[in-house]
């Protein structure tokens, strides 16, 4: 037997009273993994919804078993323990060449960043503590070398989602080569050794890649305690800024009792809004809808670079840049488009384009850049 604590009972009662006068008339439990609420499905109710509870009591046998080949075709994810790594190999040197022709167009030379596309290399892991409100501090550099915890993420994502406009077009050897180049460009070591040009990456040495920021993330989600670590993390709001308090009068931020809070207005307003702000109610202007037959091909294959001037691509509508190109004659322009020129891969990276499609696209681009 133990003595009831009078205070505790009173507090408990108050808590119950508060929750039973909730504005919305249903109750939950604060026992979700994310520190939030779960709600019961009982007596035909789920919060404010009516439900058919029989749904929860049946087992429904729909669909069919996948074949071994179907599983092989789709179960291709690559995990940190090496599960799913494909056969094949590639060298840093080959990756350098592939990177220049397929990736630099967006990600810049040596992964140093294009105009706005993700920067893949450079920076220092120490920059991750930078706060730009501190004078003289730049933004933290979140690159493969300073930020990404796992190399498996890089090779998996590159295989499935890259190159940007033509995902899933790399061979396994190309994939290993580009991965090797990006790791080398980030100064990442494999089994304690720097990667030189001759270094060849494959399934055999992949797990020896040493990612510098491997331990830069929390809660620890690995192993048998992973889920419980997540639960513990969310149980304490101080871990993630859930520290608001309901104060009703003469409120001041804790720690700021002596500081006069100030009102910060917009110094530099971001106004590059598409379509531009407009709150009026009127009839729209009638637009011409005759679409050029080359527009669709342009949008799909070329706009990624030519809509802006990514990596020196002549921008659609830039009459000066295009005058220089058309001066060479249409035939030469066709040849350059088919064979590739400067940062542009052959046929803009889509080898399936026919010459007729390219002609239409070129005509669209030239006639819109006069």
């Amino acid at each position, binding site marked *: 037997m133990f003595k009831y604590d009078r205070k505790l009972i009173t507090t408990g009662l108050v808590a119950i009273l508060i929750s039973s006068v909730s504005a*919305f008339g*249903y109750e*939950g439990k*604060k026992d979700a*993994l*994310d*520190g*939030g609420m779960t*709600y019961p499905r009982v007596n035909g109710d789920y*919060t404010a919804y009516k439900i*058919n509870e029989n*749904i*929860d009591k049946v087992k*429904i*046998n*729909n*669909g069919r078993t*996948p074949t071994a080949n*179907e599983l092989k075709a789709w179960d291709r*994810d690559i*995990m940190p323990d090496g599960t799913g790594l494909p056969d094949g190999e590639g060298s840093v040197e080959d990756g350098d060449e592939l990177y220049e022709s397929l990736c630099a167009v967006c990600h810049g030379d040596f992964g140093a960043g294009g*105009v*706005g596309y993700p920067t893949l290399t450079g920076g220092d892991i120490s920059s*991750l503590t930078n*706060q*730009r409100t501190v004078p003289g501090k730049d*933004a*933290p550099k979140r690159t493969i070398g300073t930020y*990404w915890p796992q190399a498996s*993420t890089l090779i998996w994502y590159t295989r*499935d*989602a890259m190159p940007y406009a033509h995902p899933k077009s790399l061979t396994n050897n190309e994939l290993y080569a580009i991965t090797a180049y990006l790791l080398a460009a980030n100064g990442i070591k494999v089994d304690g050794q720097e990667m030189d040009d001759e270094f060849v990456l494959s399934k055999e040495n992949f797990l020896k890649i040493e990612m510098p920021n491997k331990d*830069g993330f929390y*809660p620890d*989600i*690995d*192993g048998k305690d*992973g889920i419980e670590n997540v639960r513990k993390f969310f149980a304490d*709001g101080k871990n*993630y*800024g*859930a*520290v*608001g308090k309901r104060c*009703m009068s003469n409120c001041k*931020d804790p720690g*700021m009792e002596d*500081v006069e*809070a*100030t*009102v*910060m*207005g917009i110094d530099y307003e*971001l106004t590059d*809004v*598409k379509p531009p*702000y407009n*709150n009026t109610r009127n*009839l729209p202007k009638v637009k011409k809808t005759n679409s050029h037959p080359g527009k669709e091909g342009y949008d799909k294959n070329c706009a990624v670079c030519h*809509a802006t001037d990514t990596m020196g691509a002549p921008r659609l509508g830039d009459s000066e840049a295009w005058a220089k190109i058309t001066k060479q004659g249409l035939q030469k322009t066709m040849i350059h488009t088919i064979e590739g020129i400067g940062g542009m891969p052959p046929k803009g990276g889509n080898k399936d384009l026919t010459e007729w499609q390219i002609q239409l696209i070129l005509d669209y681009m030239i006639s819109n850049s006069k």
Partner: protein
Amino acid sequence: MTKISKTSTPETEQSSRRDFFRKTAAYSISAIAATTVLSPAKLLADDENIIHHTPWGTTLGDELNKNPYGLPSPYEHNVVRRTASLLSSAGDMHAAISLSPLAEMDGIITPNGLFFTRTHNGVAHIDPNKHRLMIHGMIDKPIVLTMDDIKKYPRESVIHFLECPSNGAAEWKAPQFNSLQFVKGMMSCTEWTGVRLKTILADLGVKPEAKWMLAEGGDGSEMSRTVPVEKVMDDAMIVYAMNGEALRAEQGYPIRLLLPGWEANLCVKWLKRLEFGDEPWYCKEETSKYTTLMPSGKAIQHFYPLEVNSIITSPCPEKPWTELKKGDIVEIEGLAWSGKGTVKLVDISFDGGKNWVEANLKGLVLPKAWTRFSYIYKYDGKPLLLQSRAMDDADDVQPTVNQEKAIIGVEGVYHRNAICTWEVKENGEVNNVQVRS
């Protein structure tokens, strides 16, 4: 910079609410009387729109089914999603985000054409006849489902918001956008219909050691995320309809995963594969992105729920009080939401957070859904610093900018839910500002 102390709480709001309403009633009667007596010019001028017949009243309208799929009135053509180069890569609009025009939206349901949209490799257009969902891994019975198979399961409909954890991310260091659409428009709320994942899994025998589920999309980026099985078994769904019709392509047609209250990017669109396993996958969008970098240099990963939040939608920069006269009675309205539960209450401050009064909740109050709040206010022409602060049934309260900054710093990018401030100027103009140090 203006000192916050220059503005004070309006007198009417310091007294009790009952007292306030009593006064309001008296004021409004006298206000009407005053208008009648003092504005004879206004009474004399005839409104042309009343005196003359209108074009639409004197002609035959369109055939009723001119648009077999209905369209908004052409006069509403400016009510659209908007984006900006900053929210994309180099102005490229395949991996970008467009935001809902919250200032023009009513109630808690977002029309499908205005639902905010984020893609990582453009909007995929999937043929539903060729789409398959594979469920496999640490389960006894792996399956492949066609769309017809998926629609054979009993269906449920629920109203939930979806929010990008980047909502407001441009504003960690200072206010940047002077519009509600760009301050909070990376979210929408809809009635979703589909099947609970638990209903499908009941027959498949998920092994006890399966703690995680990989969800993979069928778009060009194969957008994928790792989800704890505990969430899957609580309230996860596979949805194929929003607001009574098929998902829009931008929202993952023909199916997407729905994890109520959690980051919208976890609710994988164009869903094609679910794999169960005992270790997390480390997808690109849960490592290089969607991780919150803290001042320590370490980052929070698997930061799932969108925390309690609110915003005043009227007034706002797009809906200022420039046409109000002193003494006008006006409704302050807004949206509150929490990914951890249900909105319990919302408070409003007129003086930048020094003093607060409780607002009224209005309409349906549902878990993990937008909830409207309302406050009746007598405009007195004085400058204000308007704020709203929500609390949910998990007893989480929105933090101030300073409270959140003290923990997260300013480089975290994601999960910003600090109290927002609208500055109402003497002329009724409304600007986005922050009360902070």
